[in-house]
């Protein structure tokens, strides 16, 4: 017995935690960050759903499913994704077409495909498939991209964006466009192209406005002046601002969101859950949550920078940006600086497909980071 020093690690102690995680291709910092946000999410959901334990359990099961998917996805080497990406894209495209004909209408929009046991939104697949396919394409092309490449990528983006917008789901279609566009940007799209496209977009604005659905126009108008109809269209924003503002610096404490508890805040456990969190946890809680989200984005960007090829870098960059955009758009709309578009708060909002796919996408990043091959210099 050695009493002087710490017991030395022996073969019988088995592998260290890091070694186990590495074997399972798990990135520990990212996992910890995701788990932290997940736990915050479960607690907030319990409060926001009016203390419905079944809702929390449902979300918990989905988190488990998502984390399992993440770990499974992480086992697959990155080349497979590069090869598979176009197939994802094609399958997603077919499903999007199907949804237009067979889809299940909910709230005036056809977004869902019902497979009996599984009901999901094909547009969620496209959020992942579009940046991956573009990355896979650009991976084969010399960078920065040429005119030809830009046109090809433009078409790759336009097809799913158009189909999703037709459902109509403006928020998701814009997110898909942003994800694809961001990949193009990271691939070194020349600044002059960026400027030309911004100008073109600004010029096309009025035309786009005319083609928006009534309720979409309504949302934008309400966003511009929420008080003009506080019990009607502006109700969401007004009530969520009341929730956030009344939270103050330290918040009202967990389970004390009167806005959600008394049903003043609509969709309090889905798109507007951030308002409940802000009311209960205050500005300090909000800053903590923002820090965790930024940590996730930072870790993803770190993985992107360490990517071994352009495909990995572009996918990791695109996904981390999409993730950030989710957080920003959701918080922005709940806080009343962005229009109300149906974007959930990642990991925290109650919701099926998006949560599972979101976590699975982190599995892809973990795969990139852990399947390292030697490159001849």
């Amino acid at each position, binding site marked *: 017995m050695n009493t002087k020093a710490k017991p030395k690690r022996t073969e019988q102690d088995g592998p260290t935690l890091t070694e186990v995680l590495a074997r399972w291709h798990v990135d520990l910092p990212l996992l910890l960050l995701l788990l932290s946000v997940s736990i915050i999410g479960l607690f907030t959901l319990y409060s926001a759903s009016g203390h419905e334990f079944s809702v929390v359990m449902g979300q918990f099961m989905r988190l488990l499913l998502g984390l399992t998917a993440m770990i499974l996805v992480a086992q697959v080497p990155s080349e497979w994704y590069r090869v598979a990406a176009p197939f994802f894209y094609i399958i997603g495209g077919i499903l999007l077409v199907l949804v237009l004909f067979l889809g299940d209408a909910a709230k005036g929009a056809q977004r869902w495909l019902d497979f009996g046991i599984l009901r999901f939104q094909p547009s969620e697949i496209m959020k992942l498939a579009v940046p991956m396919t573009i990355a896979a394409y650009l991976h084969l092309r010399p960078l920065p991209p040429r005119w030809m490449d830009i046109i090809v990528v433009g078409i790759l983006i336009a097809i799913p964006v158009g189909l999703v917008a037709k459902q109509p789901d403006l928020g998701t279609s814009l997110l898909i466009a942003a994800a694809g566009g961001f990949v193009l940007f990271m*691939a*070194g799209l020349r600044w002059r192209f960026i400027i030309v496209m911004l100008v073109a977009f600004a010029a096309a604005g009025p035309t786009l406005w005319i083609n928006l659905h009534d309720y979409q126009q309504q949302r934008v108008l309400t966003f511009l002046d929420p008080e003009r109809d506080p019990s009607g269209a502006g109700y969401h924003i007004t009530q969520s*601002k009341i929730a956030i503002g009344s939270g103050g610096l330290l918040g009202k404490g967990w389970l004390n969101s009167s806005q959600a508890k008394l049903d*003043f805040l609509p969709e309090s456990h889905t798109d507007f859950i951030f308002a409940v969190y802000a009311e209960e946890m205050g500005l300090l809680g909000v800053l903590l949550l923002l820090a965790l989200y930024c940590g996730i984005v930072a870790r993803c*960007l770190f993985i992107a920078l360490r990517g071994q090829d352009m495909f990995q870098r572009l996918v990791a960059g695109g996904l981390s940006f999409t993730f950030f955009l989710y957080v*920003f758009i959701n918080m922005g709309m709940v806080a009343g600086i962005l229009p109300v578009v149906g974007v959930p708060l990642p990991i925290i909002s109650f919701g099926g497909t998006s949560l599972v796919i979101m976590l699975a996408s982190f599995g892809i990043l973990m795969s990139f980071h852990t399947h390292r091959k030697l490159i001849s210099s």
Partner: protein
Amino acid sequence: MANEGNIRDYSLERRMFATRTVVAVFIMFLMVLALVARLSYLQLFKHDYFSIRSDDNRMRVEIVPPVRGLIYDRNGVLLADNLPSYRLELVPEQVGDLEATLNRLARLIEIRPVDLERFRSRLKREPKFRSLPVRGLLNPEEVARFELNRQNFPGVSIVATLTRHYPLGETAAHLVGYVGGVTERELAELDQRRYQGISYIGKTGVEQSHESVLHGYPGHKVTEANAAGRLLRQIEYRPPKDGQNVYLTVDARVQQAARDALHGKEGAIVAIDPKTGGILALVSEPSYDPGLFVEGIDHANYKALTTNPYRPLLNRALQGSFPPGSTVKPFMALAGLEYGVIGSHDSRACRGGYSLPGSSRVFRDWKKGGHGTVDMRYSIVVSCDVYYYMLGADLGVDRIRDFLTRFSLGVKTGVDLPSERSGLVPSQAWKKANFKEKWYAGETLSVAIGQGYMNVTPIQLTYATAEIANRGQTPRPHVLLETRDPITGQRTPFVPEVREPIRLSNNQYWDDVIQGMVDVVHTSSGTAQRIARGVKYKIAGKTGTAQVIGMSQSHYVRSEDLKKIHRDHAWFISFAPVEDPKIAMTVLVEHGGHGGSDAAPLARIVMDAYLLDQLPPPSEPKPGPNEHESQTQAN
């Protein structure tokens, strides 16, 4: 991986990606900054504002109305009561289609147009979550019919409530008044916080003049409500402060006696205690049932009241102004004595008429041939007009006006009852201002016998009489004796305003005039001698017969020959017992004929009732709102 002959520069691509990442991070940093700025603005800068908005959101303030104070007479006889009754109420935000619900309700329970009117007025100004009355005083049959169908009426309920009830009914309608629904015009002048969620407000009489005491202060119940308006839990409760119970100086038995005496005629009786100024009885006839107004009077009844030629809604005691006729003579005599125009024992000759110097127009005495030699006392006893023509001519109208104004004739007495009229005692300046004409000396003669432009109200004349009885020391007339807290029983006596007493240069003047008034009743030549028969106390009085239409001074018309509306008003002012006056009163019988024959006997009845305790048996109390119930039980 070479591609189409281009050599890929991997390190260049990597550097470019790193640059782009830095740009992206910078943009993301700006976005995070925007979020943090926005959230700090909401949570720090606007925190107080949103906290209030949050409380507003969830708090529902429910008004708990106070119980209205009861009204009693001086002996504790109830004049205004609150009786339990059933009321149909509706919460606007809980019924789907309001109009359809009202229509369906109307098939079960009669909802009169006046009920709808009241409901809609409340609907406009009260929040939608508050339960609003639709119809009150439901009878048991209506309650049962609704209860059988209540599952078809979400948001509609029957609540037990208190309804104002007036046990004396018509007997004291003008005195006690009634409550009714608050109108928006009234609300504009009130402390709105005190009248939120309140159905009733005093409309006339004591109910109106002492509204602020009777009403009390509403309490509130703060409950937490969810977005659907469902109440979840009580957060705060402040009980209402119920209205004070009000005790009046009135004696219900005297009121009843006066009413019974006058019933069937038009006119007024006002009796006050000369020492305190407290009103003992105040009757105006014809009267009306004040209970009709409590739950909103329907149009047929209201029309019947307003189109009735005898105007039952008019409170003649305060709002009816009439020429005082000869009842003004004791005051004129006092004026003459005070101004030294006459002496108590100076005599003047009455030959049945008087002409102003230089005028051929003859002002006639009521008695053909005149009264012969008349001194001040005798002028009152026989009500000699000529004596007062001379007195008036000597005084001049302005001195008459100044003196009578000291007795509150032609000015409001300031009684604590609403809508008092001021009446009129003319002056030269008044005529100039209103007619742009100079005053004629002949007009002074009319005023001197209480005719012409002169108009007084019964309460003014009563107060003036009380001043004679109490030698100018009577406090302002009032009906409020004291208020009592309904819970602690604590009494707050009403302190009447003590006016500057009327002082005469010689107190003997009072006695001389009073002697004249005593002899009106207690000598055989007195105009009211008929009421002295069998009287057990000494009465001082003065009759008056006020002309309604200007009649020719050249011939006499017997009043019995005139149509009723052209007949004279009969007045009698009096007080008793003379040695220690306990009651001063005015009887007015409109178009009654002569003061001595038609008004004075009523005064005797009331005085006997009060002074000898010969009070009428208490009349059957009027059945309350639940009469249906008691009848059903009796059957």
